[in-house]
């Protein structure tokens, strides 16, 4: 019995560690390129294009950060503290854009706003303007890209800061009021500084996703660091240099993660000893209510309603027999299955890692867990190369002789890719969930002679229900949208919705792409709606 206990104890300690090592190996393989050869292409990159890539990427990140912060924090603050027109449904609807992948918004944007796009045509018809007149400015530039990313990704900031605003001690805000702060001062001098760690956690996700994107920036012809990676690989046929560039991108992200860590470590005070009272939301009337409504509605409109309208427009224009064809239904089934599998594994894994870390899992565990978060920022296609190299290493030395099938091109590769890609989402959510549980709870439980595992199942799990579910849903929504890694790692005849969309969109056959694209958004909506439900119900101090 003692032996069994010992074994179990060790297994719980080592199994996650081994799993973690497997997961970071593809990333390490990408990073190893840094220690390889540096060829002549670097000269060319350095002299002609790299400065441009870097400047564009920085401008893009800055623009997206500012805009998504305004949208995310603004809506979160309004929802938490005020009552205004239509708020009851906006409160959950405002995160719907998370179901729209940036590349799909980009495609619909050009469909709408190109000089002969449907929005311009509509304006022309309405006001009987000259045929060559274009009312809307060109979107195929960095500003268009900033708008696309900000309006699809701001929900990450809304989610994190909303949680923080909700958990913010009302007494602090009331103290501010007593000190004579008006609403603006309350917002800028008290509320925002207090949720800064949450804001940065959300922002880190936004930035990582922006940097890893290829589809949207490619479509807008904005030359970023990531398009540079693919130009080098596809155009110069130089995968090695492309991997080196990707590694630099990852190192750059480490910098953001370090900031995020630093901020998160300061977060503890936010929750300490807060007493929650039922909030008294201020009721806005008339013009103010309208302003609040417009502010919250416009991101929803641009990031969700507008693309849906345009996609529907396309789908109707090109009535496709595909909508409920076996092909699309198969893709839907594959997408849902992969989403569920990845969601469950990724969340359980993040739970275990963070649980071990809570009881001093050791520096290696901590570091490698953070390292794994980098996967989120790595362009999917580069991650896929890491996985393929890793798997063929195993295939050539092991499975070939023992198992008679190869790992490359098996569903295992896809699951691995999804977990690496979405681990940052799960980890961020689970970690902040653990941090909200006071350490003294652990101490009390331990002193009551509970084992650590018992604490985990009896104390932590129930307290973290929301975080666990959130993590699960975020991972699913990421998997539904994931394209590039799926495209190259999948087995024969295995399509997901994103793949089906891509196959049409790659040829800019948007009419045909519309049906699967609508399916992506609709499928993505399911986890998102659950998620909205969670936020609404998560407010402590509710009566």
């Amino acid at each position, binding site marked *: 019995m003692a032996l069994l206990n010992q074994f179990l104890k060790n297994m719980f300690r080592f199994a996650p560690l081994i799993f973690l090592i497997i997961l970071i190996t593809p990333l390490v393989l990408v990073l190893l390129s840094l220690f390889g050869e540096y060829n002549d292409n670097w000269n060319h990159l350095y002299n002609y294009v790299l400065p441009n890539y870097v400047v564009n990427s920085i401008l893009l990140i800055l623009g997206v950060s500012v805009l998504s912060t305004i949208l995310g924090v603004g809506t979160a603050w309004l929802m938490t503290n005020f009552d205004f027109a239509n708020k009851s449904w906006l409160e959950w609807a405002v995160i719907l854009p998370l179901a729209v992948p940036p590349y799909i918004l980009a495609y619909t944007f050009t469909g709408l706003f190109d000089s002969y796009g449907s929005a311009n045509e509509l304006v022309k018809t309405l006001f009987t303007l000259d045929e060559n007149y274009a009312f809307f400015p060109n979107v195929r530039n960095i500003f268009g890209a900033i708008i696309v990313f900000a309006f699809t990704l701001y929900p990450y900031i809304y989610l994190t800061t909303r949680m923080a605003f909700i958990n913010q001690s009302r007494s602090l805000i009331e103290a501010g009021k007593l000190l004579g702060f008006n609403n603006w001062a309350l917002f800028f001098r008290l509320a925002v500084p207090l949720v800064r760690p949450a804001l940065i956690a959300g922002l880190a996700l936004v930035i990582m996703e922006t940097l890893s994107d290829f589809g949207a920036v490619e479509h807008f012809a904005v030359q970023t660091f990531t398009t540079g990676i693919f130009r080098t690989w596809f155009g110069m*046929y130089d995968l090695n240099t492309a991997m080196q560039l990707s590694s630099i991108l990852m190192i750059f992200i480490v910098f953001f993660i370090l900031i995020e860590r630093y901020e998160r470590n300061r977060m503890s005070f936010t929750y300490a000893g807060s007493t929650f009272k039922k909030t008294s939301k201020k009721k806005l009337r008339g013009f103010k209510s309208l302003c609040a409504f417009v502010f919250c509605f416009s991101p929803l409109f641009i990031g969700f309603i507008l693309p849906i309208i345009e996609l529907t427009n396309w789908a109707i224009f090109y009535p496709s027999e595909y909508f409920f064809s076996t092909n699309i239904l198969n893709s839907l089934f594959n997408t849902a299955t992969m989403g569920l599998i990845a969601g469950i594994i990724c969340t359980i894994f993040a739970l275990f890692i963070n649980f071990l870390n809570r009881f001093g899992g050791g520096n290696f565990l901590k570091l490698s867990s953070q390292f794994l978060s980098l996967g989120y920022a790595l362009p999917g296609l580069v991650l896929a190369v890491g996985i393929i190299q890793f798997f063929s290493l195993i295939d*050539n030395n092991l499975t070939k002789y023992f198992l008679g099938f190869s790992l490359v091109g098996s569903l295992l590769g896809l699951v691995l890719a999804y977990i690496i890609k979405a681990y940052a989402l799960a980890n961020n959510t689970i970690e902040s969930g653990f941090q909200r549980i006071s350490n003294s709870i652990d101490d009390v439980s331990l002193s009551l002679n509970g084992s650590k595992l018992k604490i985990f199942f009896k104390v932590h799990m129930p307290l973290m229900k929301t975080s666990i579910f959130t993590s699960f849903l975020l991972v699913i929504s990421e998997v539904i949208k994931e394209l590039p890694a799926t495209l190259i790692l999948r087995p024969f005849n295995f399509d997901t919705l994103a793949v089906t969309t891509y196959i049409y969109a790659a040829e800019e056959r948007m009419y045909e792409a519309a049906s699967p694209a609508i399916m992506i958004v609709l499928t993505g909506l399911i986890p998102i709606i659950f998620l909205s439900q969670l936020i609404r119900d998560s407010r402590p101090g509710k009566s």
Partner: protein
Amino acid sequence: MKNINVLSTLLALSIFTNFVFLSEVNIYTSRHYDSDVMLYESFTELTGIKVNIISSKSQALIERLRSEGSNSPADIFITVDAGNLWKAQNYGLFRRINSKKINEIVPKNLRGENNEWIALAKRSRVIFYNKDIYSKADLQGLSYKDLSSPKWKNKIAIRSSNNLYNQSLVASMIAKYGESYTENWAKGLVENFARKPQGNDRAQIIAVANNEADLAIANSYYLGLMLSGKKGEKQLNAGKKVSILFPSQNEEGAHINISGAGIIKSSKNYDNAIKFLEFMLSEQAQKHLVENTYEYPINKNVEPSALISQFGLNFKENISKVSDFGKFNSAALKLMDRVGWQ
């Protein structure tokens, strides 16, 4: 009871289908056309050989093939652009295609040196002009080289240098005229751009139809696609306004590129793969290809689609080795970077 019946029928069916499809051919392709999938289905109907597909980006597929090595389940790699075939050949991914039938159909300059790969269809990168503004006589004899002349300042629409077709065009210029000449040429061409490169090939043709540019450089089959009405009325009307000029008819000839395929070295279904390629070159398949993608056929017994042959059939093709594009692709890309071709 009914349910059991249904179940057992299903079970029997699934066993049966597995039985029928014991024979298969595995394809990695970077062509994502529906019409290709229909072709694969008719191949299966004809031969009973099941076609399994993974479609993805060319370079990524090449990387997967390289990593898989001798474990690769793939039998055939299909891709567009000769540069990609050259790249795969250079990595030693292909084995010789031994088929008399294929050799008879595919001309030598559209095959790898030792039959490592073959062309399945051709396209030409041509000049589009607005029929209201220019007549054919106005542009007679225009060559790729002429496009850098100051005469065309702010008048040319072409897509970004990210695009493989442009890289191949520039690579073919390098192969023909050398790097420094081509660099000067590209510099002049960039100065003639009517706008920042944006959109796909069809967007360039539409720009010409809308007078945003005088000349557009794009692949031939896109006009066929627009004229077919499959892209909607707007594109159909735009397509009707433009015509094709085959460039460099007094010089090297119009730039030709291919969709092509090779058989993978580790192929476990070599015979099926040969059967498949022979089928793709058959009159039936070639007819289907040209009527759906508006590419030019490889099989001489098949005519191009009427939508595209109306612009001319007996134009002079640049018959230089298409594999040169691969050789000079990297140089072409760097050159385009240097002259600021976005």
